[in-house]
């Protein structure tokens, strides 16, 4: 067994994800299967291979950079309409700083 309960709980904390006990157990087993499957990649020698970090097919056309110019968007009110607890012009969240 590669993945422990604690591993799953640690990852869930990193990902801000509340999991039930049943979920922790299910994911532990499934992750174990998947990571065991993934481990077969270790059989392939990649010591001289550069990682493919992006997909650029033709540098003549791809990944151009634009001027970095500040533009007004004026979308605050519209964007806040989708928020669960808007307090224009802010998003309200539970208190994070103690008095």
């Amino acid at each position, binding site marked *: 067994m590669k*993945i422990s309960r604690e*591993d*799953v709980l*640690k*990852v*869930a904390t*990193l*990902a*801000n*994800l*509340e*999991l*039930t006990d049943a*979920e922790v157990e*299910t*994911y532990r087993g*499934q*992750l174990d*299967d*998947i*990571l065991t*499957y*993934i481990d*077969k*990649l*270790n059989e*392939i020698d*990649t010591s001289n*291979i*550069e*990682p*493919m*970090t*992006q*997909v*650029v*097919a*033709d540098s003549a*056309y*791809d*990944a*151009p*950079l*634009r001027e970095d110019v500040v533009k007004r968007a004026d*979308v605050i009110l*519209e*964007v806040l*309409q*989708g*928020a*669960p*607890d808007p307090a224009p012009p802010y*998003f309200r*969240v*539970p*208190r*994070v700083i103690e008095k």
Partner: protein
Amino acid sequence: MSAPNTWTIPEVRAALDARKISARELVKEFYARIEEKNREFNIYLALSPERAYAQADRIDAAIAAGDALPTLAGVPVAIKDVISTRGIPTTCGSRILEGYKPPYDATAVTCLESAGAIILGKTNCDEFAMGSSNENSAYGPVRNPVAPDRVPGGSSGGSAAAVAANLAVVSLGTDTGGSIRQPGSFCGVPAMNPSYGRVSRYGLIAYASSLDRIGPFAHTVHDAAIVMSVISGRDPRDSTSSSAPVPDYTVGLAKPLHGLRIGIPDDYFGEGIDPEVREKIESGIRLLEKLGCKRVSIRMPNTDSAIAAYYIIATAEASSNLARFDGVRFGPRVPGATLIEMYRKTRGRGFGAEVKRRIVLGTYVLSAGYYDAYYLKGQKIRALIARDFREAFEKADAIITPTSPVPPFRLGERTADPLQMYLADSYTVTGSMAGVPGISVPSGKTSGGLPVGLQIYGPAFGEGRVLHLAHAFEQAGGAEL
């Protein structure tokens, strides 16, 4: 000429030009069909009649005024629910975005509407495009219009089914590891995954940014080519979109295929392929040979590693992209005493099982001490897969494979084992990793009447060649093999 209920893009135009139907009447006809069939098939998650009729009236006014009509004038389209539509609910098939209405349109949607298309509504999909059967939607699975006890494939199952069930003329889906091509294969309609960077991703709610693409489903390859010409091109709002010129993809579709070399990778016909699928694909290859193609044998030696590397890269990117769903800016919030508790509860209850599984896996492979062993290794394998394709395209003009190793399976048949579900993506994830275009075209049916899809890969930005081959295959009766 297509089946009685089926409208192709040229048929819509011809009917509008001849005043046989108005754009408004056509929209009404499609909404009536949706009303009749959606309860059973669960294809649409939201409809946008106000916007659709307003656009139809603009088209009808243009016709009345004798104005020149744009390419897609009056064509009813469906949009996968991971693609943003201003003011129309966009949930990604997830509870965490229930009720969310984006304040802007995706560029692909703007392109369609500017070309006269009419947005009917949003189609069901696997939650955040994660799945191969559409069973991961929080709003219930889609049924396959060809065989209602079967899955439509995924993740763009609703978009594939919308076209197959004649509830849209064309639709947009998205593909990260096969999510356009596989449901196209399962529902028996042409389905195109363009090159990475060909179509702007602006407004596509991201799953795995280095793999995600937008592409069309259609009744005919010709219709798919029309849509490709409309949605492709450079977009200043997506820095990965390419400025490579966009041809009219319909030009030259009817040219003969003489001398084109089709590469058949032996590595794709090994264990795990359904014998009937294999037989239909072999018949498909013979049909292409009859049309003048030259068959060449090629090797793609890193194919077996593709799924493992894909699930590292895709889940790592997903864990990062999905961090934005935290109950602050959109969607429902589950209250908590602290900010962190609010995040944890909102995400824990808002995401479904498959999404949580991938976030956990993606977070794990990126966590301290594991980056080199997993993410970096995955990117190196990705480089090897891209090299397989580059070398193959030195010997062949296109590569032919099955789209899926199996025909559509029954609802519920494969949900218990996620790894087995992942392995069924093996023919499509390779092209996703390499960034090359691929299309699935119908290639006969099994003895049980289930559709089989033949996949045609071309080199990056070789959409024209891929569509050319697919069109010739379709016109020669590929679907009837």
